[in-house]
């Protein structure tokens, strides 16, 4: 358990230093600046209002390139050289996992940015790492539960990557499907840099499933959906959090190929909807040159939770107090996120809510956690 120390690093009477780790470059760069800025705007807003207990938040941003040695170097630099109070970061599960031991050993509180692998947060012991974002396993469970409510869906095929990100979902997904008596016909693999999915689509057609689960990154998912549409694979498809329907529609160019697509969504509503407007405006205000897109607000809820924790920890801020405060957060509004956040000493995964969205009449609508027409 955390020890109380009076002289924790990174705090002055007027500032709190937070180290941020993101994929500024490398294969996950698309989740780099957008998610960082989506979190950063919360801190900017807090600073604009005079900070927390008189302290302004100072961010040091480091790149991890989605490469474990770089991520570890970034964490060590922030902890030992910059002496930050806490960390907020990780847009690549594989690389942020590499920093886990270092973070825990140094008793540095950390909020995960957008990495979804369960293990990062859920493996014990973990007194310091928090997440305010839907963990991968939950994603799998939501999908399995949703499929169970779909009429006439008894046999499904799963399509996805062979990476840690998709791997985080397969466990609960297959378990859930089995529990609901849905037959899993097979697991087809797509590359993350997929250029063509003809082989997969034809193979799936051959298996005649009632539905397809798609656990793919946006670009690969778009390629798959496009090819599925072209080759006449028109069963319902259910996608994981990592894709967004609007984003897919933009990529594919229209919602034709998405008529039968359902996606686990984390936001309160589609971009442009009433619930999202304040957040979109906030981003516009602080980062006017950023493109407002599906990934923009993935990190926002984490920042909100951090701010809440810092506030609750009081003016005599220490890491131990912060951790205690975090563990006490209950039903905090997730901001743009649909879930409300609750943490406890035993469970640092604060977000458990995700709902299905689908396309009806060319529009993205919220379906809920049960299938409905």
């Amino acid at each position: 358990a955390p020890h109380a120390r009076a002289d924790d690093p990174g705090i002055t009477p007027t500032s709190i230093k937070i180290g941020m780790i993101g994929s500024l470059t490398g294969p996950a760069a698309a989740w780099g600046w957008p998610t960082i800025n989506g979190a950063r705007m919360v801190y900017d807003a807090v600073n604009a209002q005079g900070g927390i207990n008189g302290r302004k938040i100072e961010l040091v941003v480091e790149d991890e390139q989605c490469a474990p040695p770089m991520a570890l170097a970034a964490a060590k630099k922030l902890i030992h050289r910059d002496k930050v109070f806490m960390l907020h970061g990780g847009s690549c599960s594989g690389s942020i996992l590499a920093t886990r031991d270092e973070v825990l050993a140094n008793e540095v509180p950390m909020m995960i940015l957008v990495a979804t692998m369960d293990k990062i947060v859920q493996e014990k012991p973990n007194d310091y790492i928090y997440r305010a974002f839907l963990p991968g396993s939950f994603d799998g469970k939501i999908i399995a539960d949703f499929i169970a409510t779909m009429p006439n869906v008894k046999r499904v095929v799963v399509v996805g990557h062979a990476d840690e990100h998709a791997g985080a979902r397969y466990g609960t997904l297959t378990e859930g499907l089995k529990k609901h008596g849905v037959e899993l016909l097979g697991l087809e693999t797509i590359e993350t840099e997929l250029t063509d999915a003809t082989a997969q689509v034809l193979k799936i057609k051959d298996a005649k499933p009632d539905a397809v689960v798609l656990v793919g990154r946006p670009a690969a998912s778009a390629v798959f959906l496009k090819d599925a549409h072209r080759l006449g694979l028109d069963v319902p498809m259910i996608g994981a959090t990592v894709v967004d329907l609007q984003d897919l529609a933009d990529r594919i160019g229209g919602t034709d190929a998405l008529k039968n697509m359902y996606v686990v969504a984390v936001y309160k509503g589609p971009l442009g909807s009433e619930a999202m407007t304040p957040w979109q405006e906030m981003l516009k205000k602080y980062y006017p040159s950023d493109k407002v897109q599906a990934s923009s607000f993935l990190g926002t809820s984490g920042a909100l939770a951090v701010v809440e924790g810092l506030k609750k920890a009081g003016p005599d801020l220490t890491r131990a107090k912060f951790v205690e405060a975090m563990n006490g957060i209950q039903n905090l509004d997730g901001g743009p996120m649909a879930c409300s956040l609750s943490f406890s000493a035993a469970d640092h995964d604060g977000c458990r809510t995700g709902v299905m969205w689908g396309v009806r009449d060319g529009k993205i609508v919220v379906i809920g956690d049960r299938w409905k027409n």
Partner: protein
Amino acid sequence: MEIATLLSVGLSNGCLYGLVGLGLVLVYSSQGIPNFAHGELFMAGAFLAYTAIVLLGLPYFLSFLIAVVGIGLMGMLLEWLAIRPISLHRSLGRASSEVAIVLATVGLAIVLKGLARIPWGDSVRNLPTAFTTQTVTIGGVAIATQRLLIVAVTLVLTVAISVFFARAPLGKKMRATAQNPTGAKLIGIHTSNIYSATWALAAACGAIAGVLAAPLIFLHPDMGTRMLLKGFAAACLGGFGSVTGVLLGGVLMGVVEIFAGRYIATSMMDIFAPIIIILVLLFWPQGLFGARRAARV
């Protein structure tokens, strides 16, 4: 029917690999080095076309032309900036200058990727296709029009470049320069111009491939890396020398890959290419269409 669909896609994928490989073969045939920056020329071509079409609203084929010419010029510039200073080092032996040049192309690749990330790194973009009709149905097989365009352009380009090499002296000059730069200088070949010309040509080929592929694979700064590997493989199978060889090498890869994915296992699609490369090179050590190098004492 299914076979026809697989074939049509495998072929067009293969043509794309061949097209990327073609640019690699061009540089290889005048400088004897693999150009690791070729994937980024491919990417740059796609983004330049994107800028022209989406941001400037120019017509498709004009944008295509702008991308090809623009990247061709960029290739020339890159050669002049980063490659020529090394090849001019007089004290260098042949082998060490080649290795150094290879590394310079690696550096170029990283720089170009970094540059592309500044305006375009934050999200994935979409390049429109050449035609408004997305698919045509030929004999019951739905084929993406973009794929037909890829096959057509690749065939035309391969024929054009083969003829060019056979007819125009530049091809011979390039080969001579690659094999012995000193010998080439002695027969009056301006070797530096040859390098510029090949880089321009290779970059233009890369841009063509990029513009053609982008609608299928989406635009992002890292889009060239994977393609580069496939292009290398195609070029290697073709023997790194013959223009038709690289096309056939690419098509072989494209077709085998898709059939193997469909009938063996999709999870293995990623490694069919390396397996093909290893098998082919083990049994035909100089590629399928390359000639054995003359070696004796």
